[in-house]
């Protein structure tokens, strides 16, 4: 198990390293940041000074090595816009992002999983059909459309909730609902099919044939087995929390990482974009490792034979 874990961690670090390298080279290949940042009519000597002060006059591989060495010491460069450390800028935004993504995540699980299980157990009932309809709508509707529709109804028409900003709890409700609804829809559909798959297995028939009550068949045999694939998709959702927040934070002017990313992209602020990319990759990779560990815990097959 320890060996397996060590190998897994090594692969995770390699992935993160690759992401950093990819980001660095793609972004450097794209053009001279000095010309992108400075205005077109800036005098050549100030462009040159900018280059020297940011180390852009060195060969690319020197810049790369410097970036890696600095990154290892926790220095991910400074924002080219306001000169503050990129890592600090990003970390400042973390609480705001977590404030909406964690409740949204819990909302997804609290609605999606029970809805999926209920739909599977009452297959072809009205409730099942409604769940499926809701879930198809959930992933064919872009999150910005859902966000704007919610604003239209609850802010513009009813006036119950603020449409944007971050002054208080009320501001967080619409972003949370927007993020949660789409995820819940996907999760419901996935849980339903995982459940249906398990319910069709011979051991379920065997369990009910030996006289167990349906309730016990479901709780002791069906649910634990359906939990295995469902855990994968939940873990995947943890990894995409930040990506999902990009659009929603922008719509609601919520000061999180996603909005910072959009602003930095628009401003072409290299260091900040790189830092966020690294941050997102680290989140995904960590989530994947946790999923693997949880797997070992809920799936006995994994305990004896690590992949």
């Amino acid at each position: 198990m320890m060996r397996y874990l060590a190998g897994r961690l090594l692969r995770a670090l390699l992935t993160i390293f690759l992401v950093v390298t990819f980001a660095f080279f793609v972004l450097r290949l794209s053009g001279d940041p000095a010309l992108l940042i400075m205005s077109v009519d800036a005098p050549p000597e100030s462009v040159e000074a900018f280059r020297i002060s940011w180390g852009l006059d060195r060969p690319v591989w020197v810049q790369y090595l410097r970036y890696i060495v600095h990154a290892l010491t926790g220095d991910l460069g400074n924002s080219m816009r306001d000169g503050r450390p990129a890592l600090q800028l990003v970390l400042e935004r973390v609480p705001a992002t977590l404030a909406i993504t964690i409740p949204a995540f819990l909302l997804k699980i609290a609605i999606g999983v029970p809805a999926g299980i209920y739909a599977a157990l009452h297959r072809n009932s009205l409730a099942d059909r409604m769940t499926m309809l809701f879930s198809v709508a959930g992933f064919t509707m872009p999150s910005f459309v859902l966000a704007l529709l919610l604003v239209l109804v609850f802010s513009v028409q009813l006036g119950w909730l603020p449409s944007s900003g971050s002054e208080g709890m009320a501001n967080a409700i619409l972003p949370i609902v927007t993020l949660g609804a789409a995820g819940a829809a996907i999760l419901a559909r996935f849980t339903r099919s995982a459940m249906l798959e398990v319910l069709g297995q011979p051991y379920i028939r065997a369990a009910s044939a030996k006289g167990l009550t349906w309730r016990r068949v479901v709780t002791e045999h069906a649910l634990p087995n359906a939990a295995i694939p469902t855990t994968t998709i939940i873990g995947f959702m943890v990894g995409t929390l930040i990506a999902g927040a990009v659009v929603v934070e922008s719509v609601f002017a919520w000061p999180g990482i996603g909005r910072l990313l959009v602003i930095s992209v628009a401003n072409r602020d290299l260091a900040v974009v790189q830092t966020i990319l690294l941050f997102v990759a680290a989140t995904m990779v960590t989530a994947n490792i946790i999923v693997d560990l949880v797997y070992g815990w809920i799936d006995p097959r994994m305990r004896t034979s690590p992949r």
Partner: protein
Amino acid sequence: MSTAVTGANPIQRARRARFLEAWPLLTLVALAWIALMLVIAIGADWLAPYHFSALDLRARLLPPVGFGGTWRHALGTDELGRDVLSRLIVSIRLSLLIAFFGTLIAATLGTAMGFVAAHFRGKTEWLILMMIDFQASVPFLIVALAVLAFFGNSLVLFVVLMGLNSWERYARIARGLTISANEQGYASAIRQLGASSLRVYGIHVLPNIASTLIVSMTITFPETILLESGLSFLGLGVQPPLSSLGNMVGYGREYLTRASWILLFPSAVIILTTLSISIIGDWLRDRLDPTLR
């Protein structure tokens, strides 16, 4: 009595029932919607009543017909007096084109990569699998944002980027199916007859896995529409003066309180189109490839 009223004899009814079983009503509606979208996309230049960027400053923020508007601007106008219907038609064309080429690039590139991995195995395969893993380890929206920011934005780059979104899905499918065909099936038999790789993959393997690939395209296409409209909504995708559905929603957001129709029509088109393709995809999957369910 009732048969006389509906004018249907039992044979006709049975025929109708059989037809509806093969072509469910929902699928027919979805197909009709997609057909309409295609007609609009192809005939955009003739169908649009005005030029999509023609200003009419005397007719600004006019509501659509039924909400106090007139047939002159059936879906109303925006802040600059541009006809929403005309902009919608042009946007549908651009969004569909981007999604179409994006899907095509993803399918072609991915399938080719899958074939290459399955054909050479060894180090080449390992490299391609590594790229697939890498693609899966970072959400594509984030990568797309970064690339767009620093490479600047041109329509060609944007379409290529949309194509890179889901190539790995096709690569995985093509690789898996090709390996199994190569190992025990018809592909090795054809190769044994002396056929070239081009013939084995082009005439035999590709048609055999085509249905799976086509079903995958019905998943990629709506995904691409959503990605494109999301990026365009954020102002980082299609750039003005061009207009896509996402752009329209992004622009209409400013007028949410005063002129919600500007964003409601393109939003509805996005939802109905992605929904229709998903429905058609489910139906195709049931018909073509029951193993995928």
